[in-house]
């Protein structure tokens, strides 16, 4: 049985269906990215996984337990970092640590926080407030806060969307390294095809909304460990990249209109794409 099972998930607002028949699984230690155009309901799916939102239909089982409401078992990195501006970087992380281990004393909390600050490369900026940090540093604090509670699963909502390309590359490398070291299970929203190929084991492709669904699940043929500087030399790289870009510019609309896929049959089974051959 898979670690996370999403079965026949749907979200409707009145007569409008944002997405329906969303079905996928995530294995323990797997890194899954979800790509789709704005309005297809990616963030809603992530919020449902986090327990912050409720689905209109469908079930969600993580580690043999149904997901009902938010929990310390799932750490969330928010799109807008969501750091508390009146706390320092260290205190923001400590806030999460104290929530996870309320009985810890000050020294235990401090030691644990320092470890995370060092891990995301913020040593020296512990006592700065968010307003004094750059966008990249703020997002690092957000990542450290999510990792700090040692969640069973990490949910990232387009965490690097607002960063410049250079900073984004550095933080991607760090996230890759940390996830490989900790064998963290990750579900991440992204708009960036290259980011998905670099980080993900599998990539979920969502058709356009309304009435969106997970149309294809692409298995990343490039073996780990992957390196940002040499990944484009891999013989599979351009086939995967072209497949993903083609989906975004072309097939995402055709899935929505019913031209592709098996619309009308519930639950829809996403086409599994293996580009190894």
């Amino acid at each position, binding site marked *: 049985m898979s670690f996370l099972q999403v079965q026949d998930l749907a979200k409707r607002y009145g007569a409008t269906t944002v997405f329906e028949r969303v079905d996928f699984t995530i294995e323990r230690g797997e890194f899954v990215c979800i790509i789709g155009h704005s309005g297809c309901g990616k963030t809603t799916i992530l919020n449902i996984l986090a327990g912050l939102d409720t689905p209109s239909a469908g079930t969600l089982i993580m580690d043999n337990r149904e997901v009902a409401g938010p929990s*310390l078992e799932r750490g969330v990195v928010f799109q807008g970092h969501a750091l*508390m501006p009146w706390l320092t970087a260290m205190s923001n992380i400590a*806030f999460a640590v104290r929530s996870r281990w309320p009985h810890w004393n000050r020294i235990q909390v401090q030691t644990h926080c320092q470890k995370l600050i060092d891990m995301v490369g913020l040593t020296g900026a512990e006592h700065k407030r968010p307003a004094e940090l750059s966008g990249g540093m703020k997002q690092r604090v957000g990542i450290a806060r999510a990792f700090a509670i040692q969640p069973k699963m990490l949910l990232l909502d387009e965490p690097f969307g607002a960063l410049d390309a250079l900073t984004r590359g550095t933080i991607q490398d760090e996230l890759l390294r940390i996830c490989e070291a900790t064998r963290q299970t990750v579900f991440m929203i992204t708009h960036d095809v290259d980011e998905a190929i670099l980080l993900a084991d599998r990539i979920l492709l969502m058709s356009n909304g309304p009435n969106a669904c997970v149309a294809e699940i692409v298995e990343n043929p490039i073996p780990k460990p992957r390196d940002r500087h040499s990944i484009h030399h891999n013989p599979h790289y351009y086939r995967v990249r072209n497949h993903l870009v083609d989906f975004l510019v072309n097939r995402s609309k055709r899935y929505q209109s019913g031209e592709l896929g098996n619309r009308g049959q519930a639950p829809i089974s996403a086409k599994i794409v293996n580009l190894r051959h």
Partner: protein
Amino acid sequence: MSGKAQSLAAGALSLLFLGVFLAIWHIATAPKAQVQAPADEYAKLLGKGAKKSAGLPTPEQLAEAALTHLKDPLYDRGSNDKGIGIQLAHSLARVGAGYALAILFAVPFGFLIGMSPILYRALNPFIQLMKPISPLAWMPIALYTIKDSSISGVFVIFICSVWPMLINTAFGVASVRRDWLDVTRTLEVKPLRKAFAVILPAAAPTIVTGMRISIGIAWLVIVAAEMLVGGTGIGYFVWNEWNNLNLTNVIFAILVIGVVGMILDFLIGRLQAAVTYVE
């Protein structure tokens, strides 16, 4: 112009304005050449022979009066002759008591209103109705029910301080960013910790802004309230000196009211700076 040079120039300009103002004042109030009094008897009847100056004082007379008051601010020679320090202490005690009661009521209650959108909308019409009422309009009701003029003064301060704080607290709490609340939800933060560790610091700048508006209003109102109820306080002092036709003391009291109001605002301003955060 650099920041330092600019503040130097502004300071110099302030001094210049003060100088011009004092000069005009001096010229306007300078004693005119005395018209020869018709008869000493008559002058005595009019009180002209007395040393007490009538009309507006010159700056020098005001400075002299101020010095006398400040030299001995705490004397007490019966109910109509108390030092300026004692009068101020009475006013500050009333404002302090009414204002503290208003904080104790408005902050927790505003918190509850802010947490509940239904309560917020249900109570809003009442608050909007009560807010524009002059606090002095409550005075007869306060005097009738409380039957004590001093406590009635405290009540009037309470009623005028409470609305800005209540409205600002409710608004601040209601508009805490959703992101921060989502963070507390994913971290399974207990309600009490959420209230004190997240909502309170997030709403603190708005709450303290309400407190700053309130202290300003309270200090305006106490003068009028004390004129009305009498007995003690800086407002009563002003009214008493008006009855004595001593405008020098009235002007001195006006200056003191201004300085104390400025200090009160400065103190809350410091608190405001301490709780304000940059996003």
